[in-house]
């Protein structure tokens, strides 16, 4: 694998629309559950070990070349909130546009044709990783890191949190992010039904509330 290619895919500036989503941080800030860097760390840690692990494993499985139709159904079953399913498909469409322009590949053309309205973002990211010549663990890393970097960036805007502190949160979570990416990549080798299903009940509930707000800074 090419380490530079991994940096391109993992870059927060990769034009796949992720910056418009807070990963539940906006709802948590409004509910008073994130007030400072310590709360942000607890939020990111919980997200990493739940939806982070589950999404990273879906991406790793797609990177291994498993059937995207099965993975799409598995992702739906792991996402009870319709607001989060819609957000994942929207992000999937945006990731697909960026990935096809960046790493043209018949695999991505076939995936786009099979899901004209988009599939879940981790499935697209995993397929993009495969198209770019990256492996399952690379895909798992991208998703696991993005699971925490999204809310950390959002918290800087939502709380006027010191960006140095937000980045320090991410750095302190690095060993756990390593562990989650490794676990996700290992689990992806056991077949689609055996993929992790770790979930965060509060993120599912508050996503529905957030989607109904008339005015919001982030899409999810």
């Amino acid at each position, binding site marked *: 694998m090419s380490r530079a290619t991994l940096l391109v895919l993992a870059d927060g500036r990769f034009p796949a629309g992720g910056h418009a989503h807070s990963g*539940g941080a906006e709802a948590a800030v409004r509910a008073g559950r994130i007030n400072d860097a310590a*709360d942000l760390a607890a939020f990111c840690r919980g997200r990493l070990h739940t939806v982070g692990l589950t999404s990273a494993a879906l991406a790793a499985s797609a990177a291994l070349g498993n059937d995207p139709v099965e993975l799409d159904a598995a992702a*739906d*079953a*792991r996402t*009870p909130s319709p607001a989060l399913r819609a957000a994942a498909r929207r992000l999937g469409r945006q990731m697909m546009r960026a990935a096809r322009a960046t790493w043209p590949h018949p695999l991505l053309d076939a995936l786009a044709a099979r899901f004209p309205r988009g599939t879940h973002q981790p499935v697209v990211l995993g397929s993009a990783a495969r198209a770019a010549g990256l492996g399952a663990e690379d895909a798992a890393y991208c998703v696991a890191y993005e699971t925490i970097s999204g809310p950390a960036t959002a918290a800087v805007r939502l709380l006027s949190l010191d960006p140095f502190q937000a980045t320090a949160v991410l750095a302190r979570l690095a060993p756990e992010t390593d562990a989650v990416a490794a676990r996700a990549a290992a689990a992806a080798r056991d077949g689609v039904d055996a993929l992790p299903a*770790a979930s*965060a009940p*509060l993120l599912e509930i508050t996503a529905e509330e957030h989607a109904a707000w008339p005015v919001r800074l982030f899409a999810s």
Partner: protein
Amino acid sequence: MSIDATARIVADRTGLPVLAGDGPIALRRTRAHGPGHRVTVVGAMSAPLGGDRLAIEAEVLDGAHLTVDSAAATIALPGHGAEHATYCITLDVGEDAELHWLPDQLVAARGSDLRMRTRVRLAPGARLVLREEQILGRYGEEPGTLTARLTVHRAGRPLLDTELACGPGAPGGWDGPAVLAGHRAVGQLLVVDPVYEDRPPEPRLLGPTAALTPLAGPAALVTALARDALTLRRVLDRARQDVLGGLHGAHSPGRP
């Protein structure tokens, strides 16, 4: 001495051809409030303890109706060794069959370590009402470690797959602002009905920490967090009345 026990229930249109308790899991046939058969799970002792491997398998054959409830909450307790306990529930529901799986709470007492696994397989025309409630610790007590995964397949396709891990042995952040945020009671109510194919339920909030959501298949899921078992049960009971009331309207012919 740890226990290895599997209780079995089979319901058909006419009766309960299999009703076999095992070890600490006793099964009683009880009077049904609605159509079909009712079975009450009677825990003959506090279980599961660390190291125990308990299982219940229930099969509702085509056209049969079964309700399963329990006489009391199940309390996971620490065992003598370091090994965790397992509790596996396997439910199969056939064509035009209906299962109401309504056990009482599972309480993860301090020092306990339980992996709970619920697998449900539904025929395309099956109906299901399933409630799960997890209480983190007895009153005022630190919780034990609990991992509970619920996997539902309908017509061979995944419909719902969620896992909650909490307690001192769970990965970090479970008690934080993304997962439980200090709540000590968490529950789900799943209602699957083919009627939802054409008329999926509308998503709605049922309070600040509870929501009803339509799944990608014909099903409604209520996810709720509460400070204690009683508050959680109130939310889920109200939701069950609401959801089943709406379904009853949809099943009655001649209604819009």
